[in-house]
């Protein structure tokens, strides 16, 4: 049980880190939409349209880091199942 929780915490931390890097390592707040520019040929104005997209920021990393630490800490209170003691014949 203890080992499983610790592995889960590590997996959570690693997968979030990979997700953060893969989505552009945003050092600001987490975004749920991103501005997309498109040029109007006639006027030369760049229109801005917000499209839904999840971009994790440092706040998200921090929250997951805190969660993983809590999980790891909780695991210390769990005991591994007792292994059967072998007695010498």
């Amino acid at each position, binding site marked *: 049980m203890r080992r499983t929780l610790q592995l889960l915490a590590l997996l959570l931390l690693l997968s979030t880190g990979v997700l953060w890097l893969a989505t552009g390592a945003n050092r*600001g*707040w*987490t*975004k*749920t*939409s*991103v*501005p997309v520019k*498109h040029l*109007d040929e*006639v*006027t*030369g*104005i*760049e*229109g*801005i*349209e*917000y499209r839904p997209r999840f*971009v994790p*920021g440092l706040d998200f990393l921090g929250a997951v880091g805190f969660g993983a630490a809590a999980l790891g800490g909780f695991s210390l209170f769990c005991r591994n199942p007792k292994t059967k003691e072998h007695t010498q014949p």
Partner: protein
Amino acid sequence: MKPKLLILTLFTALTGAGGAAPLDFDFKDPKGVNNITFKLDAPLEAISGSANGISGRVSFDPGNPAATKGRIVVASSSLTVSNPMQKEHMQSDKWLDVAKYPEIAFDVKELKNVKTEGEVTSAEAAGTFTLKGVARELNVPVKLTYLKDKLSARVPNLKGDLLVLRASFSINRGDFNIMAGQVEDKVANAIDLTVAIAGAAAR
């Protein structure tokens, strides 16, 4: 008969050239391209976003750009940033209070230092900028581009002209009663605004 006709023709031509009525441009963009971007660069945090709920009318005379007058309105609720919590805070009663002050407006009274080259007019627009119920006189550097007969290129089956208005200027949120003097390390006092909008005058 012939001299009379000549005088009449000359009179028509002269009054037509000199007394052309100003064109009325509507800035409610059916294509939703018109936008105003804002940027706040504080020591600890940079915030940027845009607004596209733009409307208003501008009276522009291509023969006399100095006589330009009008009003541009931005719906406060159309101000958007990428973080939903930040957007909620920005629109709350603590900051912009969009429920109580649904409009941000600039009333142009006159153009100063007008310079026209071809279809482009550069000037300073003098007028009243109203934000969160506070009105202040501002001089904003603007660039107006008059695109004659270009409306049909943008909106098929509609003949007329386009007027592109561009401006970049800064305001201080403290001047407009927006959390004056507070949390300036995270939310800068200076707000940089960039306007890029087009109005249409159909015929």
